[in-house]
């Protein structure tokens, strides 16, 4: 879009047309969202009022039935009296749990041989279950000292279907069920107003199509603002102008403005042309993109979403907005600094469940493991690289074996080897006259068992990587060094190590990430013993999710782990770039 091009009248027309299209698209988005919000608010407000009235009728009936003793003719009389004051189409039933009895009913169908009192029929199981549910809520409120509402209200097919428990002598003996028609919600307001606010600016813009770019652009923005603000003012007056109205409407406006700018400034056109130009490439990557979207990105973002809620096993079916608790999970994970506490005898003790303890332990665990893996692997690689070593292929295969075995089998074998009475490690110690150790009773010894296991599992990888790199170092470098009189050590530090660096650094980086999240070894070898002291972050997150059923908290925990590794990833990227020069 160079300057001379803009003087081209044809191009000029294209730009102005874009402004026009952007104006229309932006208005559609902003007004559509505003209208949807308006409709939702209006019907929610209406439903709230209707619900309140219906619940009033329900609790009134429940009170009268309880007063009449919960069963018998008194209850039937009370129900009849109550029915007189209810709108047409209201139905009341009284159910007694013992013997699954319909004690009283004003349902026209419950007449003749179906007249109450009688046993509930086969197809009336839901009524009985509902009464049973009411009893469950009352029992739970009593046992757990909770204050769940002791009633059930469902809006279905324009009717409120409700139930409340009936008590007698402190125990729930039954329930009242009321089905009460709700007046149909008023028609959604503001359709003509929204259409007007949409059409007017678009029409007004028509004469401006001949104007210059800048004039057209400013006019489009002004008309957009006028349209959105006009509808906003109308909507606000309709619902009474609360703070959340302003919030919702301005969010819709901002989104619409974004769409306007995207279309008007050519973003949409560029996007489309890029799509058309590279359509073969996009077609090829589409399956992978869909796969990634469904299998990776959706669970990932859903997990992050869950982390802002208080989701637990009790409320998995509740909508996320209802259990939203913002940053509470993060605050309680990151804001708890009580790493040490006073034990019963007054001494200081570590709180193993604390996030920072687990983080420190995880870091120590990662650093020590990688250090062991690299040093053992490198030494073995150097040994294997010795010229003229006999039976080298056999050694190599043997040394790679730990890596080739499934790691959970290795983990279980090592756990067995650290058994106090029958483990081979203690047996070996006893051969030298030492006392057997209960390895999993102390944090440090427990840590050693996991470290030994993971060290055993991780050195072959480092060995293979180093061995490959060692064999690619040209022999004449060493020859030249020897001619110059360098010692073996000098050769190692000045030739071998720098030549290994490009191969070792990425391997170390990878192995840090693996070890940081090495779930199997911790879970199977130490299982966090003693008392969660040797838990790493990932096993801790597992415990929160699948032993304590605190899904929201566990999701937040996992997100924190992700952020830690993300920061590490950014950091390692820089380091790798630094090594690329070699």
């Amino acid at each position, binding site marked *: 879009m160079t300057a001379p091009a803009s003087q081209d009248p044809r191009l000029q027309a294209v730009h102005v047309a874009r402004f026009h299209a952007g104006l229309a698209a932006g208005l559609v988005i902003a007004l559509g969202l505003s209208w949807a919000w308006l409709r939702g608010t209006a019907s929610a407000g209406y439903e709230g009022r209707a619900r309140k009235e219906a619940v009033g009728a329900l609790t009134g009936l429940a009170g009268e039935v309880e007063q009449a003793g919960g069963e018998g003719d008194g209850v039937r009389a009370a129900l009849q009296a109550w029915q007189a004051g209810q709108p047409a189409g209201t139905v009341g039933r009284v159910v007694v*749990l013992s013997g*699954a009895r319909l004690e009283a009913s004003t349902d026209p169908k419950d007449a003749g041989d179906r007249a109450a009192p009688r046993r*509930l029929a*086969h*197809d009336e*199981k839901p009524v*009985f*279950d509902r009464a*049973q*549910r009411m*009893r*469950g809520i009352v*029992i*739970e409120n009593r*046992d*757990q000292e*909770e204050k769940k509402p002791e009633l059930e209200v469902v809006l279905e097919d324009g009717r409120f279907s409700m139930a409340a428990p009936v008590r007698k002598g402190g125990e729930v003996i039954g329930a009242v069920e009321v089905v009460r028609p709700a007046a149909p919600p008023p028609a959604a307001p503001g359709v003509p107003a929204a259409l007007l606010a949409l059409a007017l600016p678009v029409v007004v813009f028509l004469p401006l199509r001949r104007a210059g770019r800048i004039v057209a652009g400013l006019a489009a923005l002004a008309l957009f603002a006028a349209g959105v603000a006009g509808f906003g003012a109308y909507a606000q007056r309709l619902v009474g102008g609360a703070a959340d109205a302003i919030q919702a409407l301005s969010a819709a406006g901002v989104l619409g403005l974004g769409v306007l700018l995207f279309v008007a400034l050519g973003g949409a056109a560029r996007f489309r042309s890029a799509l058309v130009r590279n359509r073969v490439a996009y077609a090829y990557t589409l399956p992978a993109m869909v796969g990634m979207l469904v299998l990776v990105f959706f669970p990932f973002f859903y997990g992050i979403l869950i982390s802002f*809620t*208080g*989701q*637990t*096993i*009790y*409320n*998995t*079916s509740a909508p996320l907005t209802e*259990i939203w*608790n913002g940053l509470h999970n993060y605050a309680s994970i990151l804001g708890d600094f009580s790493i040490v506490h006073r034990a*019963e005898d007054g001494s200081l003790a570590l709180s193993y*469940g604390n996030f920072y303890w687990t983080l420190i332990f995880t870091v120590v665990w990662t650093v020590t493991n990688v250090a062991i893996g690299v040093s053992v692997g490198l030494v073995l690689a150097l040994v294997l690289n010795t010229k003229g070593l006999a039976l080298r292929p056999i050694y190599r295969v043997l040394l790679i074996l730990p890596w080739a075995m499934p790691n959970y089998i290795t983990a279980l074998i090592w756990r*067995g080897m650290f*058994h*106090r*009475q*029958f483990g081979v490690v203690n047996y070996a110690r006893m051969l030298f006259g030492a006392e057997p150790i*209960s390895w999993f*009773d102390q944090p440090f010894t427990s840590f050693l068992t996991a470290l030994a296991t993971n060290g055993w599992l991780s050195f072959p990888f480092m060995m293979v990587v180093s061995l490959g790199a060692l064999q690619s170092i040209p022999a004449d470098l060493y020859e030249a060094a020897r001619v110059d009189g360098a010692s073996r050590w000098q050769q190692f530090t000045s030739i071998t190590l720098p030549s290994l660096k490009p191969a070792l650094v990425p391997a170390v980086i990878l192995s840090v990430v693996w070890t940081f999240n090495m779930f199997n070894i911790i879970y199977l070898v130490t299982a*966090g*013993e*003693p*008392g*969660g002291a040797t838990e790493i972050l990932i096993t801790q997150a597992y*415990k929160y999710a*699948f*032993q*304590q*059923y*605190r899904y*929201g*908290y566990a999701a937040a925990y996992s997100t924190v782990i992700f952020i830690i590794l993300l920061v590490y990833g950014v950091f390692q990227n820089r380091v790798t770039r630094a090594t690329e020069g070699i």
Partner: protein
Amino acid sequence: MRKHQVLALVLAVLSPLEALAADIVVWHAYRGGEKAAFEKVVAAYNAKPGNPNKVTTLAVPYDAFADKITAAVPRGKGPDVFIYAQDRLGGWIEAGNTVEPIDFYLDDAIRGRYVPATFEAMTYRGSVWGLPLNYKCIALITNKKLVKDPPKTTAELEALAKKLTARDAGKFGLAYSYGDYYYHAALQNGFGGRVFDQGKPVMDNPENVKAAQYLQAWIKAGFMPAEPSSALITSLFNEGKAAMVFSGNWFLGEIASGIDYAVSPLPVISEAGGKPMRPWITVEGVYVAAPSKAKDAAFDFVKYVTDVEAAKVMALEGRQSPANAKVYADPKVAADPILSAYKKQVDVAVPMPNLPEMTMVWSPATTALGAIIRGGDPKVALAKAQEKVAADVANLRKGK
């Protein structure tokens, strides 16, 4: 008008049958002999004269079973009937739309035909959610070569165990997973202890402390191996190096063919005034899935599969211990020493809590047991466990 009434009458007469005729899908996690026995029961149900329903079974691998139920059933993609132990029941009920309450169908005859504790395991917050199919609990398993008369009291047990122990030879009088809370519960319940009271955790009640002190006395006496994992116990028993074992019927399949063993009820606790050891029972229940379209038919099958006829097949061919108490009157079942021994045990056992909070108990309880086994003060260890469980439960409930 008249025509309508006749039609309505005809429909009313036909409707119970109409509602019953249905295809029912059952999910179970059985393999081998249990699977064959279960399929035999299903075939017998399908062939039953006058039964309009058709039941098909699907064996789902055990590891994935609970998660599959949790994921599939509430979305209406699951079976009509499924079989699982009671430990997940509370969680499923709390999550909603998974298990159908069945109080409506029950009469006293059905309620009365099970071992009471197994029926209790199917009850959650005052409602019944399934019918018990079978139970598992630990009992005393003895090596007949080493133990002629299984001990009836803990005093006898201790004396016998001490006599049979030769630590240097790696021989032990008694071996059981006392570090596992599930096994320890037998002692704890025997002393009158419990984990929950009215749905609230009470890990550190005085009875639990007493049971823990008693366990410490046993450990000190030295007739049990250290760090008793299940693999270790199996190998000790199979080598004739453990004379007595506390374990369930799952252990019987692992006993080597050369070992002659007997099963008898756990001894009564002399120190608790002769009260019996009361192990926890795990009960497999048969549940109707809440979103099922054929609940009446599904319950008809649930009723059948937990009735005497089916229980007999499951006991004798599937080697299960049926929850149906009536089946133990059958001569063939009564003659089976293992089945009747476990029946004697289950009569004094208590169901393992089916509250979802139970999963929060295991880890702190194991930690506390670990400290107790190492000789720590039981009061302090259990108080710590109580604090942790109470905090975890409160955290879970807060989100509710």
